[in-house]
């Protein structure tokens, strides 16, 4: 086998003649073209995701109807500040990771930095989604317990025997909605990851496995 490889090496180094040869102008034209690397795709997709989730975060969740309630108002402010803080943190982190992607790094370092950049965006999505889910639960609870239209209903419910069951049902519906959204999103991410990063992840794993 060693001999075969040596033979191959000799042959390989003689290959030059059979290789294509591009002219100066052909190469010059190439440097004017745009890259279509996955890093570029990752960058655009990530920016789109940030914009999308920031916009989602702007949807007022029943804010106007509850403005009179002092205790929940503070909660809203906290949630809002929190979500802006989270957003800023992740955008900065994303930018710093993106800047670290460097083709002159070793293969392993390059892959690691690409995966890290991508992970920042995905973590951001999950975190902001969790904040969104928490606000949704709070708003629903609030609507049921404090809104005038619901208080009447609430009293009736409290008087009825099956009140606990109705509350449980509402709870299950809300949690169900959150879970379904979560699963759909998870599937969506599997898809994006599959398309963009499957090969990269496999190669990275292979290199990483070597170092264990």
């Amino acid at each position, binding site marked *: *086998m*060693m001999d*075969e*490889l040596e*033979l*191959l*090496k000799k*042959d*390989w*180094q003689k*290959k*030059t003649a*059979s*290789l*294509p*040869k*591009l*002219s*100066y102008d052909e*190469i*010059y034209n*190439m*440097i004017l*073209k*745009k*890259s*279509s*690397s*996955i*890093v570029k*795709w990752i960058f655009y997709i990530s920016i789109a995701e940030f914009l999308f989730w920031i916009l989602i975060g702007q949807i007022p969740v029943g804010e106007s109807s509850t403005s009179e309630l002092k205790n929940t108002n503070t909660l809203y402010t906290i949630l809002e500040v929190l979500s802006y803080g989270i957003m800023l943190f992740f955008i900065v982190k994303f930018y710093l990771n993106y800047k670290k992607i*460097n*083709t*002159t*790094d*070793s*293969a*392993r*370092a*390059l*892959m690691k930095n*690409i995966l890290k950049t991508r992970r920042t965006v995905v973590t951001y999505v999950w975190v902001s989604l969790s904040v969104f889910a928490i606000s949704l639960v709070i708003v629903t609870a609030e609507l049921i317990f404090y809104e005038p239209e619901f208080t009447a209903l609430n009293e009736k419910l409290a008087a009825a025997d099956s009140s606990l069951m109705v509350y449980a049902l509402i709870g299950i519906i809300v949690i169900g909605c959150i879970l379904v959204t979560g699963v759909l999103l998870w599937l969506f991410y599997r898809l994006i990851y599959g398309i963009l990063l499957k*090969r*990269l992840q*496999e*190669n990275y794993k*292979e*290199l990483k496995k*070597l*170092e264990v």
Partner: protein
Amino acid sequence: MSKNLEHQFVTELENNQNIVHKVCTLYTHDRESHNDLFQEITIQLWKAYPKFRGEAKFSTWMYRVALNTAITLYRKSKKKVKTQDFDSVLFKIKAQEYDDTEEQQLKLMYNAIKELGDIEKALVFLYLEDKNYAEIAETLGISEVNARVKMNRVKNKLRTILNP
């Protein structure tokens, strides 16, 4: 970027284009994707060029960017092409240069290499380019010992493919 830098870069690449072509041959199966990958590697080299300070030889520096592009940045087309294409286009072995068995052997080996994974191909490529283990390790970002271990595994794998 200045015209001067452009000129310098294009000239360097023109003189060293064989390295890029060899990477393309290993990682693609047809002429079209070969050109595609060449194009992407050229762009990546050009983007990284301002940071190239001549601390290494231009060719040495190229290996890393070219391999990184082939393994990590380039999105392969799903199209599956038969290995014959690859034989006939770029690895055509001139019959008069070798005796039959040698020619046959080489053909089989090139085909076997095409069946390897991305990282394994990179190892074989660097080996065929006569790089030492220190360089191989540095290019891939693994230790020298592990580069040796992995290379031995790849050799074994090639042996299995060749003699099933």
